[in-house]
C-alpha cells in the first residue's frame, strides 16, 4: 500500500474519532482513574511490608510502571470490533472490491484511531500523573529511541492480534465472547495489571510461550529503565520474531476465512 494512501485512511479514521468529543473526555477520566487505582493499590500493598523492594521494584519503580503501562495501553486503543461489524453489515464487500490490502487498510484505520487517543488521552494522563505521583523515568536518548521502536513493534503485534481475532467473524456469527476472552488474556498476560516479574513461577513458562508480554510489558520496562540496555536487542528480536509468526497466522487465517465469508444482506 502506498504511504499516501495509508495516511489518508489513517486521517479519515482520526477525524471520525474527533467527532466523539464526549467519549474522549470520559476516556481521559477513565484512564486517570485506572492510574489512580493502581498506584494507590501498590502504595497500600508496599506499606504492609518492611522491605522496600519487591521483585526488583521499589515503590517509585512500581508507580512509574503503573503509570506508563497505562499510558502505553491507552495509546494502543483501537476498535477491535471493526472487522466483525463490517462482516455483520456486509460492508466488507465494498472494501474487497478495491485494489488494496485488507490488512493494511485495517492497520491504517487503527493507526488513525490510536493517534487520536495518544494526543487526546495519553498526554493528559501522563502529564497529570507526572505532577501527582512520584515517578522516575531515565532520560537517556538511546533508551527513548529503542522504546519508540519497541512501542511500534508492540503496536503492530496487538494490531495483528486484533486482526486475527476479528477474522473469526468469517467463521462465527457472534464473536463477542471471543473478544472478551482475548481482552482478558491480553490484559493479564501482557502485564497490563501486574508486571510479569510478580507472576508466580508456574505461570512463567506460559507467559514466555505467549506473545502478549511483547505487546505491553517489554516496551514499558524498556522506558522505565527496568531492563538493562544490554538486554534490549534480544527483546527487539523476539518482538520481530513474533510479528513474523503473527503475520503467518493472520495470512493463513485470511486465506482460509475468505472461503467461509458470507456477505450479509445480499
Amino acid at each position: 500500500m502506498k504511504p499516501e494512501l495509508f495516511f489518508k485512511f489513517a486521517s479519515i479514521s482520526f477525524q471520525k474519532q474527533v467527532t466523539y468529543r464526549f467519549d474522549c473526555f470520559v476516556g481521559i477520566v477513565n484512564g486517570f482513574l485506572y492510574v489512580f487505582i493502581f498506584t494507590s493499590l501498590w502504595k497500600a500493598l508496599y506499606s504492609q511490608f518492611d522491605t522496600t523492594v519487591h521483585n526488583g521494584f521499589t515503590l517509585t519503580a512500581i508507580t512509574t510502571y503503573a503509570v506508563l503501562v497505562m499510558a502505553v495501553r491507552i495509546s494502543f486503543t483501537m476498535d477491535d470490533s471493526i472487522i466483525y461489524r463490517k462482516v455483520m453489515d456486509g460492508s466488507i464487500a465494498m472494501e474487497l472490491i478495491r485494489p488494496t490490502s485488507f490488512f493494511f487498510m485495517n492497520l491504517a484505520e487503527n493507526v488513525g484511531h490510536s493517534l487520536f487517543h495518544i494526543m487526546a488521552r495519553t498526554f493528559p494522563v501522563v502529564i497529570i500523573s507526572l505532577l501527582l505521583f512520584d515517578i522516575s523515568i531515565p532520560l537517556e536518548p538511546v533508551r527513548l529511541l529503542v522504546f519508540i521502536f519497541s512501542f511500534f513493534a508492540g503496536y503492530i503485534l496487538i494490531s495483528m492480534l486484533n486482526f486475527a481475532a476479528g477474522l473469526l467473524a468469517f467463521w462465527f456469527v457472534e464473536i463477542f465472547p471471543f473478544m472478551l476472552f482475548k481482552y482478558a488474556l491480553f490484559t493479564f498476560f501482557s502485564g497490563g495489571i501486574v508486571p510479569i516479574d510478580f507472576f508466580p513461577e508456574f505461570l512463567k513458562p506460559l507467559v514466555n510461550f505467549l506473545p502478549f508480554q511483547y505487546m505491553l510489558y517489554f516496551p514499558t520496562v524498556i522506558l522505565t529503565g527496568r531492563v538493562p540496555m544490554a538486554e534490549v536487542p534480544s527483546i527487539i528480536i523476539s518482538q520481530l520474531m513474533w510479528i513474523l509468526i503473527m503475520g503467518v497466522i493472520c495470512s493463513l487465517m485470511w486465506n482460509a476465512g475468505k472461503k467461509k465469508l458470507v456477505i450479509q444482506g445480499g
Partner: protein
Amino acid sequence: MQDNIAIEVKGLRKEFKVSSSGKGFLGKLQALFHRGHKIITAVNDIDFKIRRGEFVGYVGENGAGKSTTIKMLTGILVPTSGTAEVNGIVPYKDRKKNAAKIGVVFGQRTQLWWDLPVRESFDLLRVIFRVSRSDFDRQMAKLEKALGLRPLLEMPVRKLSLGQRMRCDIAASLIHNPPVLFLDEPTIGLDVLAKQSVRNFLSEINRTEGTTIILTTHDMNDIEQLCKRLIILEEGKIIFDGETEFLKQKFVHEKVIEVEFYEDDCVMQGIPGVTVVREQGCKKWLTFDSDGSGIGEVIGTIASQYKIKDISVKEPSVESIIRNIYDNRIKLSTS
C-alpha cells in the same frame, strides 16, 4: 483466454452451509449440542462467456444466484468449485489485480465514505486506483457532465438522496476507466427520470468506451433498453442465454387482446386458436395462436358475434415473458 473475451466462467459453483436448529425451547437446546447443517447451492455449475463490449443483462428472481455470481467475479467470494476469469485474471486468486481492472456498483451499498464530501471520496479513490492526476481530471470532467454531478461534489455523502448517491457511486466505479463494469441493481429505488439518466449514461459508455457491462436488475425496462444479451438464472442455473430480441421474437405469438364487451356473458366459442387468459366483469384478455388465424381475422370474428365497447392489442413485454418464465408457464430449452 482469447483477447476478445472479457469474462469466461466454467462450471462455477458456490455452496453455502446453513445451520438449522429445531423449533421452540427444546429444539434450540438441542441445537446447543448438535446442529443440523444444510448445504444451499446458490450458483450451480454455470458456464458463460462474455465478449468485450457486450452489454449483458443478468436476471433472475431473488435468491437465484445473481449477486453471488457477481461477488465471485469481483473477488469478494471464493467459488466452491469451477473457474472464472475476468480480463484474463482469476478474481478470487488475484483479488487486488482484478479490482484494479473492474468497476463495481452494488445498488444497496455505497463505496463512498459516508462522512466525506463527494469530491474527497473521489480523490481518495483516485489514490486507491493509482490514477494519474491528468487522467483523473479528464475522466471526472466527463463524468461530472454526463451524470450531472457538479452540484453534488461538495456535499457529504450521507446527505445525498438515493438517486444522487447512485449517480455518484456509478461515477466512483468509473474513475479508473475500467474495461469491465459490474452493476448489481444500479436503478433500485430510483425515480423514472433518474433511472432514465442512468440508462442513457450506461448506454453511452458502452458505445463510446466499449466498456463491457454486466447488469443485474429487476427492472425489465433496463433490460429492454440496454441489454442486447440476456442471461436468465433460476435456482442457481442458467435457463436462458441469448439475445433479448430472440426472446421477444420467440414469444411474439403470445400477443394479448384486451376486449371490453357491453355484456359480461360472452362466451368465446367457435373461434379457433383463441383462449381466454383472464376475465373481469365485461373485460376479457385473450391470447391466440398466430399460426392459426391472423389478428384481423380474430378481431373480425369477435366483432361479428358480440358488441365490443373497447379493444386493444398488447405486445408482450420482456417483463411479461420473463414473468411467464419464472412462473413456469413458458418452457425454455437451453440453447
